[in-house]
């Protein structure tokens, strides 16, 4: 790890003014410190943002706002989240470990970097870490990598669980730009696909901060599920995950939300399947059809073909679990 200067700030504006290309913000540090230890991130100075960003959850009649410094654990303990946005809590609890969730911030969770093993190994080529060097995963050990939305530059996946729920719930990200202006960006547009710029994970402007996340009230707090399939039962990243939520009228699906982690460079929404489910009866056959629709056009890599049937099973299971989740 390269030596660095660490500073705290008394105000948001001060933190922003310290930020430049050789500076990095640090929140919980659960990802950034690892990246520094592995010489992937080598900031000359770290600006601690734990005291300058909101760490509260506020609600009004129509929505909930989660400050960027709210710890992952705090979200899962919040009464309003549990009552009105339980899918979010469920997804968070499927991730990492209690210790990490206690440290991890909301903003940091969005900005955590891929777990592609080559990205973490500076002796190997990686376009995301060092643009132009090539993608080791493309023909290497890509069991954990993408099956949709990748480019010939990068096949990494976004590792977050929380973000899958945020994508499913159509959250909004509020940013504070370098010149201290607030901007909103739809969550589904926050992360990006690798295309020809694999080094860019998201559309956050340079030197900007995530200020908070908001979610509008929605009818998805009764029939929802988060299914995370992984090699080990806890403390492992997803092979595939599915956030599913249904608004039901009797046995008829009024609206559906389906999103996945572990499949793409960004939390992935299955909008076609959502459309398909609208108005259908909530039956195993319908669910299976939706899963088939989702898995039809996927293009797995050399070692992750299994993710296609796995995703099929995960979608079916998640939709099925929506019918019992409210109990």
């Amino acid at each position, binding site marked *: *790890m*390269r*030596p660095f200067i660490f500073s705290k700030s008394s105000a948001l504006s001060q933190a922003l003014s310290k930020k430049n290309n050789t500076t990095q913000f640090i929140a919980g540090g659960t990802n950034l410190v*690892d990246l520094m230890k592995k*010489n992937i991130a080598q900031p000359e100075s770290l600006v601690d943002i734990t005291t300058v960003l909101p760490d509260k959850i506020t609600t009004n009649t129509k929505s909930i706002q989660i400050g960027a410094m709210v710890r992952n654990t705090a979200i899962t303990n919040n009464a309003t989240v549990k009552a009105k946005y339980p899918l979010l809590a469920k997804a968070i609890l499927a991730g990492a470990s209690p210790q990490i969730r206690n440290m991890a911030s909301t903003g940091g969770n969005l900005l955590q970097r891929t*777990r592609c*093993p*080559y990205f*973490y*190994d500076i*002796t*190997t080529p990686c376009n995301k870490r060092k643009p132009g060097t090539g993608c*080791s995963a493309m*023909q*290497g*050990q890509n*069991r954990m990598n993408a099956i949709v939305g990748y480019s010939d530059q990068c096949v990494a996946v976004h590792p977050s669980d929380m973000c899958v729920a945020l994508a499913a719930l159509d959250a909004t990200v509020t940013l504070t730009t370098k010149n201290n202006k607030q901007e909103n960006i739809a969550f589904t547009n926050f992360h990006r696909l690798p295309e020809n710029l694999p080094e860019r994970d998201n559309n956050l402007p340079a030197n900007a901060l995530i200020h908070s996340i908001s979610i509008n009230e929605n009818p998805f707090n009764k029939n929802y599920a988060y*299914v995370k*399939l992984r*090699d*080990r*039962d*806890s*403390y*492992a*990243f997803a*092979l595939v995950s599915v956030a599913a939520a249904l608004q039901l009228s009797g046995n008829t699906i009024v609206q559906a939300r389906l999103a996945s982690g572990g499949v793409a460079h960004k939390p992935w929404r299955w909008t076609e399947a959502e459309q398909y489910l609208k108005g259908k009866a909530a039956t195993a056959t319908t669910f299976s059809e939706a899963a088939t629709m989702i898995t039809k056009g996927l293009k797995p890599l050399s070692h992750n073909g*299994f993710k296609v*049937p*796995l995703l*099929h*099973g*995960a979608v*079916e*299971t998640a939709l099925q679990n929506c019918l019992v989740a409210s109990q």
Partner: protein
Amino acid sequence: MGFFDEPYDFVAPPDDGRVEGIYKVTGKGKYSAEYKVDNICYAVMVGSTVAAGSIKSFNLSNAKQVAGVLDIITHQHKPVVPGLADEAKIASARFGLPVFHTDKIYFKGQPIALVIAETLEDATYAASLVEAQYDTESFAVDFDKAQAAVALTATGKERGTMDAWSNAPFKVEAEYNIKAEVHHPMEMHATIAEWTATDKLKLYDKNQGVNNVQRTFARLFAIPEKNIEVISEYVGGGFGSGLRIWPHALAAIMAAKQVNRPVKLMLTRPQMFYSVGYRPASWQKVQLGANAEGKLLGILHQSKNGTSKYENFNEGITRVTRLIYNFENLKTEAAVVALNLSTPTWMRGPGDCTGDFAVESAIDEISYQLKMDPVALRLKNIATEKNPETGLPWSTNFLNECIAKGAAMINWQDRKPLPMQDINGDWSTGYGMAVGMWNAGRGNASAAIEMKKDGSITVQTAMTDIGTGTGTSMQNIAHDVTGISKTKIKIELGNSNLPAAPSQGGSNGLSSISGAVVAVSNLLKQKLAEYAATENEVYKNAKPTDILLSDTGISFQTANNQFVSYTSIWDKSKLTVLEVEASSGPGAERQQYSFCSSAAHFCKLKVNRKTGKVKIEKMVAVADGGKIVSEKAAANQMSGAAVGGIGMALLEEMTTDERLGGLVGDDLAGYHFAVNADAPIIDVAFIGKPDPNINPTGSKGLGEVGIIGVAAAISNAIYNATGKRLRDLPITPDKVLGW
């Protein structure tokens, strides 16, 4: 227990607790990297970035500019290590990797430079700035690809003939592949090396045998063994990784020599993947035949395991095949496959764990052909009378009892004889079982007792306690033999200045040290009787078995106990500390009997048709470990091993990249061993019958049999649930899908 570098208060553990438990849970117990040594500096190893070739040159200028850097060792710049001074010496030293004594690169990550600096931070940063240029060569790291080209050779004596069972009516022929696994004890390996004089060395080192460390470095540095003190009082797990002396320990000693200061070197978790061995990847093929009555007629067991390019490590995969069953016809073949990886080593249940998976899977498979219950099939074929390899009668072998007991504990009668007969929604339930066995060994060990006037004793040995409960067992044995209450028995171990003992490994630890503790406890009784005889004639020629020690004095075990207090003995004989030392080891019994520990493993699990998820619901492990000296520690060994077995069966895999030539992924987020969520509470039971011949306590080791058989029990249960026979480990969801 306490610490060797500062005074401490002896805190007696709770009644059934571990002697070191309180020190561990309060954070006071010191692991090797935690000792404070004056004037210490830090060393960090730099690994090769290529998998094969040789070092052309270094650029150290950036690294040397880091403030605090004291020196950088390379093969071109190093202190003299007499035992590695030239090629011939390197060859005869059998140290393994001649670290910093060669320009050759055998694997990616191989230490090529060692940065020594004032602080760990300085050293770590400077290490990242060391640059090397290489002449690269072609390499092979993918075991599965490389093994096909390697020819097998016979290993062990053939029994009967292959022809004798070529017409067997029931036959299984199948191949099995297991990925390499890494030990990853919680405590990373670390060494603090201090040259206290030019020919005197003090080491705080994580290992499983201090005398082994002492011997190795005495040879390499050409100094007397007694000039080396090795302290390893707390060892945070080993699983076999501490049975060898690895390059990093030598590196720390070289660094201390180079800068003439104490040096600490602690491996990072990423370095743990390639610095202290691992269970090698393996391929096996088994052919098995049975007659219609379920008698196993013969077996051909072939195996290959990975090794490095600089050492041949043969895991001994087919050894267990020769042990458990009465195979009249048996042939075993083996080979090693040299790869550009570091050398593998023993890992819990070495060899046997691997071989047992294949054989126990094949036996399960043939049981379905025979339409015979796998329990009945095993009971019919296990060699209960004598060791089929040596022909010697077993001293004790209660494997059949383990099986019967385990079957009852898991409700084996609920198992459906055919697969996929117990389905509920997307889940299908299955039962599986397998057995394991391990040669029960014993080595020569010594122990000492120091006794004070207040009746307190300290029992001492050089043997380490790697978390197995050795210290607690020593306390229990000393208490049983002497009668002194446990609160007055202190244990000191893991220091080479204490009486010599073998390394703790191969399930030999307790079997070896228990004899010494019994011997020294009896010697203490005898010595005290001799002193008592100066006060009371009746103690003349009293046998240790006749007398009893209490917290305050010596007496006979009879009604007229003739009590003599320690106070009067100490006063009269002007004693300060009474010291006794004794040794004990195996003898002629080894020519008369064979010795084994054994276990039966049972598993009930369910498998999800849609997600490939395997959920283990119940696991039962019943072991014959002779007399159980410390029930809690023994059960802990068994359940820990079973959880390790779950890792082997379902999770653990060291991944390599055949194009880039190294390991892929080097953290515990990606290398999965079982966590609580993956493992049920393991139901453990013991047969508990002492082996009357093995050692004075009748106890046999449990470390290995706890894991041998677990993986097969799990995969056999998966077959029972799904009808899918999975022969490649680990069984991750992708392999389970599609039944």
